[in-house]
């Protein structure tokens, strides 16, 4: 979605730029014409009528006012008047030597159109003769153009049409090109998005941007490898710790039941056993959470019955010689008995276990732990609550907004969720469920896990 938007914006801005380019061109063109025109205003077309008007004949003598003469001198121009009847030059001003002094009609027609002995000349008819204004060689270029009316029309319309057609073609080419770019870049952007979301990406390594695709694939592989290494590292540690921990747990649990020992020693053994069990749970949680985090734990989906599942978890606690200060209560509605969800039994069991364990851990003075299962049309909720110490409103807020354990760069470890509860959140999310925490200081702690029911 964002990628489409990006390209739309790109096309828009490019079209704007193109329009700007056209406008600048029009402006430059108009300026050019204006400058050119300003340099052409002393042209023969301007001077010729002046001379024609000012050339006076008095007593058979032609005179030209001084200011006009000055203009002529400035341009190094010359002038002559050819008599209409005889074709003889009857007056001239600075006539070059190689210019003839008599002209036929043919000569006149030729020079009116073109040059006279390579001098660009301009003519103007007077009633006493033909006034000829000549400029130095190579100072003017004379053009002669004539077109049919139809041709002129075609030219004018054609010019406008070609102009707009050009704009259209440029735009089309441009859009085509950006489409092509979009096609090449889109998979790359999708790949980057996937990598950002922590997924694996595999792009086809071909086309214009194949190098970038190959690099992205490499990055994705490297990241995945790093994740795998991290998960394997954790799993390795948790494996290696099992044997030594077995010794601690096995001996302490055996010795705490040894009636030959002092009750004092037995109590210490119980303490060792409990702590060893805590380590055991911790490494199990750590292992599982890293596997879920890096998608290395495939869900083993089956039909699971939350009511019976909750019972089994409670049984495990009741059978584990838990201190009598922890009292369990189980509530479920009869119609929930046959309700099931699709999920991973081991994981959901783990989630409930961790929540109960959490209540036990935080209430060293004992508490009543209530587990209830309720169901509605669309979902099944498993609620684990206690009447223990609870947490303050701020702490609750912090718990609800904490980032993921493995993603957290927060050094304030104590403010984080315990690993066990985070694992619960991961498990719930893996089942498309939600976790809600309610708590009030000294009034208890309640966690609700809501799982969607699957319809068949």
């Amino acid at each position, binding site marked *: 979605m964002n990628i489409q938007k990006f390209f739309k914006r790109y096309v828009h801005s490019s079209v704007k730029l193109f329009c700007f380019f056209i406008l600048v061109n029009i402006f430059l063109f108009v300026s050019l014409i204006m400058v050119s025109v300003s340099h052409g205003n002393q042209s023969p077309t301007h001077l010729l009528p002046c001379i024609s008007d000012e050339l006076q004949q008095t007593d058979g003598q032609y005179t030209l006012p001084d200011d006009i003469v000055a203009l002529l001198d400035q341009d190094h121009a010359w002038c002559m008047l050819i008599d209409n009847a005889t074709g003889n030059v009857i007056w001239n001003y600075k006539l070059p030597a190689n210019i003839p002094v008599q002209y036929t009609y043919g000569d006149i027609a030729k020079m009116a159109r073109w040059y006279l002995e390579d001098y660009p000349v301009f003519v103007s008819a007077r009633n006493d003769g033909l006034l000829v204004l000549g400029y130095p060689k190579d100072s003017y270029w004379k053009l002669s153009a004539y077109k049919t009316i139809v041709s002129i029309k075609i030219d004018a319309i054609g010019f406008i049409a070609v102009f707009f057609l050009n704009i259209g073609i440029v735009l089309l080419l441009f859009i085509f090109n950006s489409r092509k770019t979009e096609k090449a870049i889109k998979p790359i952007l999708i790949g980057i998005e996937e990598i950002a979301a922590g997924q694996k990406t595999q792009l086809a390594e071909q086309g214009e941007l194949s190098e970038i695709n190959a690099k992205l694939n490499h990055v994705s592989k490297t990241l995945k490898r790093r994740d795998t290494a991290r998960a394997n590292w954790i799993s390795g540690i948790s494996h290696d710790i099992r044997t030594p921990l077995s*010794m601690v747990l*096995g001996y302490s649990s055996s010795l705490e039941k040894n009636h030959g020992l002092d009750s004092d020693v037995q109590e210490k053994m119980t303490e060792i056993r409990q702590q060893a069990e805590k380590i055991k749970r911790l490494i199990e949680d750590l292992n599982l959470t890293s596997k879920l985090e890096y998608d290395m734990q495939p869900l083993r989906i089956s039909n699971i019955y939350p009511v019976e599942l909750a019972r089994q978890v409670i049984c495990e606690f009741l059978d584990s010689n838990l201190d009598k200060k922890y009292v369990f209560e189980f509530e479920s509605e009869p119609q929930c008995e046959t309700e099931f969800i699709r999920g991973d039994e*081991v994981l959901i069991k783990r989630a409930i276990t961790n929540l109960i364990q959490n209540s036990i851990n935080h209430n060293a003075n004992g508490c009543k732990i209530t587990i209830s299962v309720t169901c509605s049309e669309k979902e099944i909720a498993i609620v684990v609550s206690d009447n223990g110490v609870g947490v303050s409103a701020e702490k609750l807020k912090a718990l609800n907004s904490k980032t993921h354990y493995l993603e957290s760069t927060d050094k304030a470890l104590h403010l984080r969720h315990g690993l066990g509860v985070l694992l619960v959140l991961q498990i719930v999310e893996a089942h498309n469920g939600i976790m809600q925490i309610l708590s009030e200081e000294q009034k208890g702690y309640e966690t609700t896990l809501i799982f969607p029911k699957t319809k068949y």
Partner: protein
Amino acid sequence: MGAIKDKSILLVDDEPAILLMCQSILKENGFTNILTADTALRALERLDTHPDLAVLDVMLPDMDGFMLAKVIREQTNIPILFLTAKGEFDDKAKGFEVGADDYIVKPFLAQEFVWRVTAILRRVYKENEDTSFLLEACKVDLGQAQVYKEGCDPVSLTAKEVEILQKLFSNAGRIVTLGSLCQTVCGDIYVGYEKTLMSHIRHIWEKIEAEPSSPVSLVTVKGIGYKLILKGTG
């Protein structure tokens, strides 16, 4: 119970300390006949002495424990219990695939280990096992389906009642959930089981309890399940 404790158990683990610990745990719990082996080869040699149960680690220096289980299975039908640090689902699946009877993941509690060993032995060698047990107010003989109360005529149990008591007895001292009791009583069907189960339980109470209205041997754990408490263990 004497017969169970006399069974010989073969422990196989490459870690001598674990072998020593398991041995001491079993000995403390009355098991006397314990063999150990720290390699698969030695374990196979020990098979000549015909142990009654093999407890195997998966990671052995000379052979994969799963492989060893396969080899053992080819020679004998004794129960196999895996005791290993490999706790992944796939590992467990593999364990049961090669014919394991149970699978314990390290680290483990001494008690749990003993329970599981006892449970397997009891299940496998039940023909020699006493199917009768003592409760607070009576003696129950599941083989004969009879309840003997002092000063009364023996009372007989129905087939369903025997099944329920069997289930509770094999988990004596631990809670059996309503769901798993129901499976015993009516297969896999959950619907409406609770009433059926309740009526069975009421009948059992009348037969085994001194005060059926306040049971002490077959106790209810509200909403969860039932627990059978043998005489002298409560």
